C-alpha cells in the first residue's frame, strides 16, 4: 500500500487574481498578478522556485500549447515548466505536479499556477472544440456542459422518485447560498445576492436547469507555492502550517458512457477519489470531520450530487441536507464559502487552485468575520472536469497545524 503524500508538502504562499471579465488583461497579465501575490505571501523570490506546473484547459485562446508562453511571460529562470490539461481539474493537476515533486524530494520549492483567458473568444461560453476526439464529432450530440450535467437531474429524480419541483427547490437553495457567499467576497466575479423567487423565476437553459443553475466563464489566475515542512519552518518559523493531507484523482473508465451499471445520479470518479482521499488523510467520518468545502459547482445539480458522492450526505439525502442549511456559511459544513464557481467564477485552469486558495486562507483565519468559517480543521476541495459520463475528478484535503 502506497503511503501517499500526507503531511509531506505544505503551502508556502498563494495568490489569486480577481476573477471576471478582465477585458484589460491578457493571460500574461493574469499570470504575473497571481504569481506576484504568491511570492509576496511566501516571502521568497522567483529564483527560489525550482520547478513549475501550468494548469490550463483551452489552449486555443492566447496561450498556445506547452508551457513556453507562461515561462516567457513570467521570465522563470530556465527551470522545468510543464503544462498540464485535464479539463476542469487542470488547476488541481498542476498542483499535483508541484506537490509530487516536493513530496518525492526532487525539489524543495515548487510552483503550481493556473490560468484561463476566455473572454477573447468573441462570444459567451467555451470555444467549440473536438474535446472528446474526432469520432465524437461524427456521432456525439452537439452538446453543451449545461445539457450534459442537466441529465444528472433527470436521472436523480427518476432514481430517488423525487418530483422535479422538489429537486428544483433544493438546487435553488444551492444557487441562493452561493450568491449570498459571493456577495461578500471582493474578488468574486459576481457580487450580488439574489432572492429564491428571482432564481425560480428564471427560464430553463437546459431542462431542468435554469439560468441561475449554471456557472459562467471568467478570466483569472491562481498560484500556489509549495515546499517541504523543513523549508517552511526555516522560512516562516512559528507560523501555522497548511499541510496537504490528501490529493487524489480519478478518471472515468468508459463504463459510465457505455456500460449499463452506472445509475447516472452521481459521479463515480468523485466517489472513488474521495474514498481514497479520506484514507490518505486518515479521515473516518467525513460528515463529522470535514470543516468546510469548495466543490465543483459548475451547475447547482452537480453540487447536490457531489454532497452524496463525497459521502457527506447519504444517498438520496442531499436535498434534505441542502434545504436544512447544512451547507450554508453558518451551517455544519459550509460549502463554497467564497461563492464557488457560481459566483467567484470559473477560469478553468485556475479554478482548482482558487479553491485551495480559499481553504488555505480560511485555515489561516485570514478572512473577515462575515465570511470566515469557525475553527476549521480540515478543508476539502473538489474539481470535476469533462461531463458526467466521461470525466476527471480531483479531491484534495488540507489541514492546519
Amino acid at each position, binding site marked *: 500500500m502506497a503511503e501517499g503524500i500526507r503531511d509531506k508538502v505544505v503551502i508556502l504562499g498563494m495568490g489569486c487574481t480577481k476573477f471576471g471579465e478582465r477585458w484589460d488583461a491578457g493571460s500574461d497579465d493574469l499570470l504575473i498578478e497571481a504569481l506576484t501575490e504568491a511570492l509576496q505571501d511566501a516571502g521568497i523570490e522567483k529564483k527560489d522556485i525550482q520547478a513549475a506546473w501550468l494548469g490550463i484547459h483551452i489552449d486555443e485562446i492566447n496561450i498556445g500549447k506547452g508551457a513556453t508562453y507562461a515561462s516567457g511571460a513570467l521570465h522563470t529562470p530556465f527551470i522545468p515548466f510543464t503544462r498540464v490539461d485535464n479539463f476542469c481539474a487542470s488547476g488541481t493537476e498542476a498542483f499535483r505536479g508541484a506537490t509530487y515533486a516536493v513530496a518525492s524530494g526532487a525539489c524543495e520549492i515548487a510552483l503550481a499556477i493556473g490560468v484561463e483567458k476566455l473572454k477573447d473568444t468573441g462570444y459567451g461560453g467555451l470555444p467549440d472544440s473536438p474535446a472528446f476526439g474526432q469520432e465524437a464529432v461524427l456521432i456525439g450530440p452537439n452538446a453543451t456542459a449545461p445539457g450534459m450535467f442537466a*441529465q444528472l437531474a433527470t436521472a436523480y429524480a427518476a432514481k430517488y422518485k423525487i418530483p422535479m419541483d422538489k429537486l428544483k427547490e433544493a438546487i435553488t437553495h444551492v444557487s441562493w447560498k452561493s450568491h449570498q457567499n459571493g456577495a461578500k467576497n471582493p474578488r468574486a466575479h459576481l457580487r450580488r445576492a439574489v432572492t429564491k423567487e428571482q432564481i425560480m423565476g428564471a427560464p430553463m437553459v437546459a431542462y431542468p436547469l435554469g439560468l441561475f443553475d449554471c456557472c459562467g466563464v471568467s478570466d483569472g489566475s491562481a498560484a500556489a507555492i509549495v515546499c517541504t515542512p523543513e523549508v517552511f519552518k526555516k522560512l516562516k518559523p512559528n507560523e501555522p502550517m497548511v499541510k496537504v493531507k490528501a490529493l487524489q484523482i480519478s478518471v472515468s473508465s468508459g463504463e459510465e458512457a*457505455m456500460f449499463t451499471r452506472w445509475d447516472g445520479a452521481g459521479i463515480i470518479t468523485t466517489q472513488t477519489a474521495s474514498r481514497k482521499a479520506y484514507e490518505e488523510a486518515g479521515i473516518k467520518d467525513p460528515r463529522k470531520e470535514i470543516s468546510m468545502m469548495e466543490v465543483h459547482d459548475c451547475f447547482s445539480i452537480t453540487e447536490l450530487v457531489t454532497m452524496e458522492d463525497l459521502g457527506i450526505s447519504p444517498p438520496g439525502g442531499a436535498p434534505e441536507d441542502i434545504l436544512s442549511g447544512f451547507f450554508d456559511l453558518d451551517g455544519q459544513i459550509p460549502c463554497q464559502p467564497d461563492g464557488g464557481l457560481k459566483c467567484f467564477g470559473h477560469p478553468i485552469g485556475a479554478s482548482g487552485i482558487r479553491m485551495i486558495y480559499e481553504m488555505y486562507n480560511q485555515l489561516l483565519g485570514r478572512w473577515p468575520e462575515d465570511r470566515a468559517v469557525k475553527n476549521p480543521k480540515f478543508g476539502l476541495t473538489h474539481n470535476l472536469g469533462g461531463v458526467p459520463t466521461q470525466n476527471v475528478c480531483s479531491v484534495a484535503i488540507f489541514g492546519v497545524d
Partner: protein
Amino acid sequence: MVGIGSFGGYVPRYRLNRMIIFGSMGWLNPVIITNARGEKAVANFDEDSVTMAVAAGMDCLRGVDRQSIDAVYFATTTAPYRERQNANIVAGALGTRDEIRSADFAGSLKSGTSALLSALEFVGYNGGKAVVCAADCRLGKMASTQEMVFGDAGAAIMVSDQDVIAEYKGSFSVSHDFVDHLRGANTKYDRMWEERWIRDVGYQQFIPQAVQGLCAKYGLSPSDFDRIIYPCYYGGARKNINKVLQVEQEKVQDDMLATVGDSGSAHPLLMLAAALENARPGEKILLVSYGSGCDALWFEVTDNIKKMQDGRGVSRWLARRADLDNYQKYLVWRGMAPAETGIRGETDKETRWSLVWREHKAILGLWGSKCRKCGTQQYPPQRLCINPDCQALDEMDPVYLADKGGTVFTYTGDMLAASVNPPAIYGNVNFNGGGRTLMDFTDCTVEDLSVGMPVEFSFRIKFYDPKRDITNYFWKAVPAVGEVK
C-alpha cells in the same frame, strides 16, 4: 416467382398547412391559392432524401435478415452527393453486406420505378433479394406552385424470389425528353413550363400511352385491374385520365396530395405501399410513374400479403404528425433563407475520411460489438470489453443495433447548443440487449420524454459542412411510434 417481398413507407413528422404558405406568400403570387388545400409533409431540419429513403427501408426490412439482401438501389432527384454513391450510404444504414450490387437512380421522377424494374430484373436473373429505396425532398421557390404541391416522403420496396406478396407480371415503358420540370446541375429550385401544357400534353397523354401499351402487350384492358396507381397532382387531369382509361374512380389509388404532397421519385412507390397495406389476395395492381416518360408495371397480389399487413407502410407515419406552424422555420430548415446561428455556428468541422472509413460500420449502421466471453453488447465497437469484470481483448462479434431500439436513460433540452430547432434534445440511451450511448433525440419535444420510455433509432443528418458541401449522417433516438403524445 419474382415479385414484391415487402414494402415500407416514410412520411416526415412535420406537416405544413398550405394556407400557412398562402398566408405568408399569397401577397406576392396570389394564384397559389388554387393549390392551397390540405397540408404537405416537410422533412425535419435533419432529414433529406437519403435519410427518408433509409427510414422507408427500415420500415420495409422489418423482420428481414439484412445479410440476405443482394442489391440496394436508391432513387431520387435530390441526392446530396453527385460523386460518392448515395445508395452505399443507404445500404450502410440498412446494415446489408459489403458484397452487394448498389446503384443510384436519378434524373427523373420515374427513377423510382426504373430502380424497381432494375431490381425485378436483377432478382429475375440472379435470384435473391433486392431493395429499392426512393425519397425526394424537392424545393420550389417561395410563392411558387411547386412549393405548394411538393411534399417530402420516402418509400421502399423489397423484391424477392421467395414468398412474394405480389407477383411481377410485366411492364411497359415510354421515354420522352419532355421538359415540363427542370433543374440544371447547379440549380436548387424546380422550374416548370406552362401548367396547361404539362397537364394536357404530359400527364394526360403519356400515362394513357403507357397503360395502353402495357395492356396491348399482355392482351389486357385497363378495367381488368383492381387497383390503378399513378401520380398526377392535377385533379382535372386525373378525372380525364380515368375517363380515357375507362376505370372507376374507386379503383384509382388516392394520390395523397392533401396529406403528403407530390414526393417526386418516391411518390409512385409511396402510393404502392399505401395500396399494399390494404390489398387483397388476387388483386391485379397497375403501377404507373410519370416524369420524362412513364413506366407501367403489373403486379398480382398473393396470399402472402396478409403476413406483411402488420403496420408497415404509410398509415402509421401519416398518423404520427405535428404541425409546422411557422413558414419561416420551413425556410430555414430547407436552407432557403440565411439565418444567424452565432459564432458557434461558424465552427469549421472538417470530415476526416480515413477516420470515417475505419469507423464506417459504427457510423452508418450503428454497428456495435458483442463480447464472446461475457455477452456484453456495447457501442461504439470496442476491442477491450467494457464490462469491468471481463475486459477481454479482441473477443468481439459485430452487432447491428439500428433496429434494436432502446430506452431513455437520461435526457435534456438544451437552449445553449447551436441548433436550427432549439432546444437541442439529447441524452443517454440504453440499447435493448445492452450497451449505452449518448445521442441526439429528434422528432419530439422535451415534454414528450421521460426516463425509461422506449425509443427507436432514425438515420439523420448529423451536420452539414457548407465549406466543403459535405453532409454527415448518424443515428438519432426518436420516441417509439405510438409513444409520442
